[in-house]
């Protein structure tokens, strides 16, 4: 029916092409939730129960630690840097000790070699050795 297309109701914008009010009412009724008005407080409660549940998840015990996250990261970075410096110093010290120990252990050998040379020079082959050392 042509007049079915021209019922402006419920604040719904209607134009000449709109569905008729009776058809709109049928669809509205078909898409209404079960339980009539009593449905809405229940839906609100269920929504808010989920919201509260989500909020609890958001504010779990671990969230207490959240404010400490940044300072903890800075502290960890500082500790890491200090540890690195200390480690480097230990390595340097070890190298120095190794070098010194190597140097000190070789000194008597040099001395003994010199002494050996001196004693050899005094031996029978002294002339030959003197020849090699001078060339």
């Amino acid at each position, binding site marked *: 029916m042509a007049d079915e297309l021209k019922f402006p109701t419920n604040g719904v914008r209607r134009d000449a092409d*709109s569905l008729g009010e009776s058809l709109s009412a049928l669809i509205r009724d078909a*898409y209404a939730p079960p339980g009539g008005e009593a449905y809405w407080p229940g839906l609100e409660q*269920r929504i808010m129960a989920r919201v509260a549940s989500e909020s609890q998840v958001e504010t779990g015990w671990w969230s207490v630690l959240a404010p400490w996250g940044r300072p903890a990261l800075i502290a960890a970075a500082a500790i890491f840097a200090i540890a690195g410096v200390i480690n480097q110093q230990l390595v340097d010290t070890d190298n120095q000790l190794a070098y010194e120990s190597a140097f000190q252990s070789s000194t008597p050998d040099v001395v003994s070699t010199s002494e050996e040379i001196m004693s050899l020079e005094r031996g029978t082959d002294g002339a030959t050795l003197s020849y090699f050392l001078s060339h």
Partner: protein
Amino acid sequence: MRIPDEERALAEAARKGDQAAFAGLVRLHQRRAYLVARAIVTVHEDAEDAVQEGFVRAWQAIERFDPSQGFGAWVNRIVANAALDITRRRKVRSTEELNDALQSPFRDPAQDAELKSRLSDALAQLPERARSVIVLHDIEGFTHVEIGEMLGIPGGTARSDLHHARQKLRTLLQDLRG
């Protein structure tokens, strides 16, 4: 857009974490949100899931909401997205399910059963988006632009879908209307 003072105050309080204020927003907007979801998913249980999910997402994102904008439009878009997620997950929706939904025992028993059956069949024959558009526009009064934002399509496409959906629905229900 003129935002009612009550809604603005509730939105600002909710942004600061006030759950009671958020409950006030839910109370104000859950009906429209439900109808938006129902227009998209058609089945009551899915519509409720979409509404719950939509409001939970809105709560999680409330810090990003601009109180100078309408909370209803914002939450309806989120609910529509949640409903579209559900339809994507359950892509195949049988006519039987729609019939069951429309002939739920919660409906007015005085309603003409044959008319409802015909209507449910006709709606089921519409493409999913066309059905959503026709319900959102002709039943809920959303504009083409609002519908486009909710469904992720241009406003012009919503207008075109609406025109074709009306034509098809009229054709399907021609004998009833005559």
